[in-house]
């Protein structure tokens, strides 16, 4: 127990110290988003056990796959910290597990799991009581399954075959989840969740808690006991597996097999290209990401074949390009402080070399894929070519641009220890960047696709123009940013945080990270929840009421007696606007107060 208690306290201390500046902002926003999701889960649970089990399956998948693409999971307490203590693996693993329960994500998941208690309470006192051990065991399963998945992926990433295999598997699973409607239709049920899905969700470990609570509600205590026992056994097995995996994680990440091709370049830009191409092929984390992007594109586009629809097939190439751009968006961040070499050779054109390398890595596969698949299904040639060209240019421009202007400080490659996925401490920021680049890359192809759909081959010309413009323009912007803010970017990567304001620099209160902690929390909460009263509880029911149709769903106003409905809607809209106004006003009030202080806006920024 002593080990566990110490680790919990250590984790708390680290979390307390890291809650400053921008990171605290991300944590608050992530936490509030999580609260909303947890609330939605509990609310969904009201509609039935199948839905609740299916929702928990989604939570578990989040725990499994989240870390693979967002910074390698929570590693506040690294196993390496404790290697010299000589703890037996099981005690080390239980201690780390205790520490793993401390944090925002487990707290949010615990809240979401109280849906079990809500569900149980409706079935009776016994079921409500059973829900308590069920939800604790369920949380332990989530946390442990995540750790085991990260450890397994870490092992897979020690060999090229493993990296490719893991990329294929992850791409297949996530693509099928993205195309879950196809599965539903294939199972013969359009609209609504087919019963078989609920059945499957119940049988997954994420559904065993639901089974236990349901059985208790029905008085089937043997089934309750069996479900709880199954959860407990699973926890024990996962813990043992994790302990075993921890002993295997020592040592640095292996790299690609030997057989080195000598660099033949003779110019500076050729050298950057050669360096990048080698990094792409030798870094197995990048191999995994590219394989994942490719597998995701192919399986996503091929999934409708299950129900006899081949039309989506040619999109495999374009989806691959968008996914590859999103995966490589923090390009400079993953290279860490190696940026100093770029700063010391100001004439060399680093950005262009990286753009070429990205294109050379992604484009050939994407082009072949698109041409072959468009030919196979005799697809819309102009639209496909226009889309592909525009996306390749957009991706090649966005990748360096995003990594320079929204750089997420990472852990230097040689300091990542036993977890090659642990590229940064800022999982939330990485996740945000992946989604942002996914969306932005898709946007770069809109003009070409629209023109191609309307006027055919003219769209390809538009695609070439926007592609070249994105490639050249975004690349130039990235080059300028690197030149102008290079030392600041390097400092960010060296220290893991954005450079603090120097004394005498204007204190911009309108910037989120400069606010005092209390204000940051308030502003973060306001921005995150303001939308709820404003849109779903205000604007949407108003539209429903005007149109005189639609379900009552979770619109509070529509459940009230008629005379109260409009006042409630107006109140909700006003509340939403007021919440957003609060978020906007707080920084400006700070600014007004600061201007009256001695030194005013130029006074020192207080330590966070």
């Amino acid at each position, binding site marked *: 127990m002593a080990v566990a208690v110490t680790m919990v306290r250590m984790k708390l201390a680290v979390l307390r110290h890291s809650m400053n500046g921008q990171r605290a902002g991300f944590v608050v926003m992530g936490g509030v988003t999580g609260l909303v999701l947890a609330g939605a889960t509990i609310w969904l649970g009201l509609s039935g056990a199948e839905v609740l089990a299916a929702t928990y399956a989604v939570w578990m998948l989040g725990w499994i796959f989240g870390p693979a693409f967002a910074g390698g999971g929570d590693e506040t307490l690294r196993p390496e910290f404790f290697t010299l203590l000589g703890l037996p693996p099981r005690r080390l693993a239980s201690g780390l597990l205790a520490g793993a329960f401390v944090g925002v994500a487990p707290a949010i998941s615990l809240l979401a799991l109280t849906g079990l208690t809500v569900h149980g309470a409706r079935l009776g006192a016994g079921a409500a009581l059973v829900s308590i051990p069920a939800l604790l065991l369920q949380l332990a399963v989530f946390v442990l399954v995540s750790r085991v998945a990260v450890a397994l992926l870490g092992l897979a990433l020690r060999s090229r075959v493993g990296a490719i295999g893991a990329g294929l598997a992850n791409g297949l699973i996530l693509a099928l989840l993205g195309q879950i409607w196809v599965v539903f239709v294939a199972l013969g049920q359009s609209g609504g969740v087919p019963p078989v899905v609920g059945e499957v969700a119940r049988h997954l470990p994420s559904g065993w808690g639901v089974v236990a609570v349901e059985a208790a509600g029905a008085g089937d205590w043997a089934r309750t006991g069996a479900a709880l026992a199954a959860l407990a056994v699973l926890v024990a097995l996962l813990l043992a597996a994790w302990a075993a995996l921890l002993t295997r994680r020592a040592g*640095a*990440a292996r*790299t690609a097999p*030997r057989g*080195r091709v*000598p*660099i033949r*370049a*003779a*110019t*500076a830009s*050729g*050298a*950057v290209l*050669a*360096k990048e191409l*080698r*990094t792409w092929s*030798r*870094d197995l984390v990048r191999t995994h990401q590219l394989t994942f992007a490719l597998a995701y594109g192919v399986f996503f586009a091929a999934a409708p074949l299950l129900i006899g629809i081949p039309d989506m097939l040619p999109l495999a190439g374009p989806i691959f390009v968008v996914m590859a751009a999103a995966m490589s968006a923090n390009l400079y961040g993953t*290279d*860490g*402080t*190696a940026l*100093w*070499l770029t*700063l*010391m*050779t*100001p*004439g*060399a054109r680093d950005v262009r070399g990286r753009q070429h390398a990205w294109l050379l890595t992604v484009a050939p596969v994407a082009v072949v894929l698109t041409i072959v698949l468009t030919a196979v299904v005799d697809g819309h040639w102009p639209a496909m070519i226009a889309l592909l060209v525009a996306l390749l240019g957009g991706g090649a421009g966005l990748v360096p641009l995003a990594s320079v202007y929204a750089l997420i400080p990472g852990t*230097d*490659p*040689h300091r990542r220890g036993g977890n090659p996925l642990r590229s940064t401490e800022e999982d939330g920021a990485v996740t945000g960047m992946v989604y942002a680049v996914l969306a932005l890359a898709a946007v770069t192809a809109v003009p070409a696709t629209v023109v191609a759909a309307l006027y055919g081959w003219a769209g390809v010309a538009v695609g070439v123009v926007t592609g070249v413009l994105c490639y050249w323009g975004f690349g130039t912007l990235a080059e300028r940013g690197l030149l102008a803010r290079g*030392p*600041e970017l*390097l*400092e960010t990567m*060296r220290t893991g945080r954005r450079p*603090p304001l*120097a*004394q005498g620099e204007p204190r911009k209160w309108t910037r989120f990270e400069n606010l005092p902690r209390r204000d940051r929390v308030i502003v973060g909460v306001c921005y995150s929840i303001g939308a709820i009263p404003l849109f779903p509880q205000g604007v949407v029911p108003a539209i429903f009421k005007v149109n005189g149709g639609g379900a009552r769903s979770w619109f509070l106003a529509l459940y009230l007696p008629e005379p109260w409905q409009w006042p409630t809607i107006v109140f909700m809209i006003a509340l939403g606007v007021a919440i957003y106004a609060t978020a906007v006003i707080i920084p400006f009030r700070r600014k007004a107060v600061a201007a009256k202080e001695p030194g005013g806006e130029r006074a*020192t*920024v207080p*330590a966070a």
Partner: protein
Amino acid sequence: MTPALETSRLRKAFGEKVAVDDIDLSIPQGSFYGLVGQNGAGKTTTLSMAVGLLRPDGGSARIFGADVWSDPARAKSLVGVLPDGMAMPERLTGREVLTYLGLLRGLPREVVDQRAAELLSVLELDAAEKTLVIEYSTGMRKKIGLATALLHAPRLLVLDEPFEAVDPVSAATIKTILRGFVAGGGSVVLSSHVMALVEQLCDHVAVIDKGRVAAAGTLGEVRGGTTLEETFVGLVGAADGGSKELAWLSR
């Protein structure tokens, strides 16, 4: 004669803490200059600002008269830098790193190949021909870093803790290389907290304490009649002078 490296009123604060407090240094051409100070005295911050890797809050730095911030291309072509603990292109072999950097510096391909081969052999890195930098030991990382600093034959070397984690045999090699470089008219600035090493190698020394220059000049001027270690402890050491013992360690 223009100093090889000159900083005037360099200043840097991290939040409340002033790391470098108006540092003026002048490193004469042809000198072997040692920068000594306790951990956290501001040596690394000063050197980073002097070569353009960290933007100062105030002050300027010039390399052979070229301002690091307004004329970076000229200033940076004249200096070779070994920073402490920074990443390299990790997925390249030692030879590939040198080829890559040589080409970045605009050297012709044949020159790059020849110098890379020579550097790898002198620094005994050629045995690990197929090893990627990410798999290097700490000492090997120092050596490949030094090779990158020397590759373009700069006139000034700025080395942050060049001997840390380097084995004695390699250290002797590095010392020979650096002495030869200075004898040939080059200038070296290195930071260290090993006094004996600085005394053995350097002809000039500056003592940095709490972000300020506590003493600077030729080795003889700074240490006077005593050893550098005594002078150093006298300048920056605790007031009571004596070092504390850990009572519970002795039985």
